[in-house]
């Protein structure tokens, strides 16, 4: 039984209730930092970390705080984890931290995090809450990454540029130049490009969902139509 529940949580976070594509939460960082893969991945990982940690902690304390002070306590926990993440990023990926700038401290205000704390972690046991945080965080992070990939390819003609900011010297030459040097497509780099790409992804998700629904309906259909036909023919004869 537990397996089914875990699978449902994963499906919820990654696809069905994806924070970025369905709930449309956290759009500000989504649009602001997805200009390149390394930025998107950096913020995605940071958000995932904060979300998982805060969900776990909040689930642990859920029976010890009263309704009245629940929200302040949650905010305090979320702020703590965000600041810790900020300090860690400064320590280990300093340049990436300077590029992402204000969007790291702003993770505190990301609605996904307080949303999951209130809607899920405050009502569920620790393990499921941690998994929910991880899956919601991954769902958000993957969309960030996808937009980052698309915008970096379209905008700069590169992929994985500056990855050493995140992975150290070994990533120094991961950069792929897809359309030769000097290529550039401005709108993909600027914020409107992020809106366009995010919009396309949402549309794509809806198309895929519709296809799945249609197929499911088609699989069930023969039984129903068959039954009807029997009745019709029966009536005619």
């Amino acid at each position, binding site marked *: 039984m537990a397996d089914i529940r875990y699978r449902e949580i994963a499906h919820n976070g990654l696809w069905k209730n994806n924070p970025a594509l369905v709930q449309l939460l956290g759009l500000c960082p989504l649009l602001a930092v997805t*200009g390149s893969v390394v930025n998107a991945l950096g913020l995605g990982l940071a958000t995932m970390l904060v979300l998982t940690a805060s969900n776990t902690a909040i689930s642990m304390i859920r029976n*010890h*705080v*009263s309704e*009245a*002070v629940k929200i*302040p*306590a949650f905010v*305090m*926990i979320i*702020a*703590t984890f965000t*600041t*810790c993440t900020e*300090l*860690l990023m*400064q*320590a*280990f990926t*300093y*340049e990436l931290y*300077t590029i992402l700038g204000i969007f790291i401290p702003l993770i505190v205000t990301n609605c996904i995090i307080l949303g999951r704390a209130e809607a899920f972690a405050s009502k569920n046991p620790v393990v499921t809450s941690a998994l929910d945080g991880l899956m919601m965080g991954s769902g958000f992070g993957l969309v960030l990454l996808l937009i980052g990939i698309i915008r970096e390819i379209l*905008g700069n003609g590169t992929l994985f540029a500056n990855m050493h900011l995140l992975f150290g010297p070994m990533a120094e030459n991961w950069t792929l130049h897809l359309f030769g040097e000097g290529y*550039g497509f*401005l709108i993909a*780099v*600027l914020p409107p490009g992020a809106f366009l790409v995010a919009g396309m992804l949402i549309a794509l998700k809806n198309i895929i969902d519709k296809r799945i629904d249609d197929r499911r309906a088609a699989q069930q259909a023969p039984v129903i139509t068959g039954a009807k036909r029997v009745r019709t023919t029966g009536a005619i004869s």
Partner: protein
Amino acid sequence: MARLGKSVGFNSLVLGAFALITAALLASTYLGTKDRIAEAQREVAKRALLEIVPMDRHTNDLLLDTVSVPANYWHTLGVEGGEVNIARQGDEPVAVIIPAVAPDGYSGDIQLIIGINIDGSLAGVRVVSHHETPGLGDKVEIKKSDWLLGFNGKSLTDPTAELWKVKKDKGAFDQFTGATITPRAVVKQVYKTLKYYNEDRERLLKAARQQPTINHQASEDSEHG
């Protein structure tokens, strides 16, 4: 009333306990990362300085060997405080690296460091931070374009004062396609900084000569072979 008082008291206690726990967590993370963060910041600052005055042109520790920017020139340089880094061969200064801010970029301040050789020629200019438009104004980054290298070797007299402008304003410096404001701001601030150096040179070098040379620590020396 007593019940209300009791619940307020209890809730405050719970919140207080949370504040203590989170503060402790923050404090320990801070203490654990403090040194690494300071080192990372130093590393980044040092790399920028070394690009302007490479290792083979100086023997001292650029980062620590500094003279304060005099307050009466803060306005000229667009800074509030800051340190001029001194590069030396042995004890003799060979170049200074001056922080400056071009306030009139397309989207606000462009922070620069400007390296000037003792003879008044430019050793190099680098942008430390800026908010210019990606794809247009961000060609002031050395990573995106080698435009900044065009300053190397230039001085107050080369080109002459009326040519210290972008080409669009009938000067000697290229602008970028689609972006004139950014290079214009940078050219203007570099020129102002050169003028500052010209005026303050004697005092600056005297101050540098008076203070002891700060050399690299032994461990760092061996690191650089």
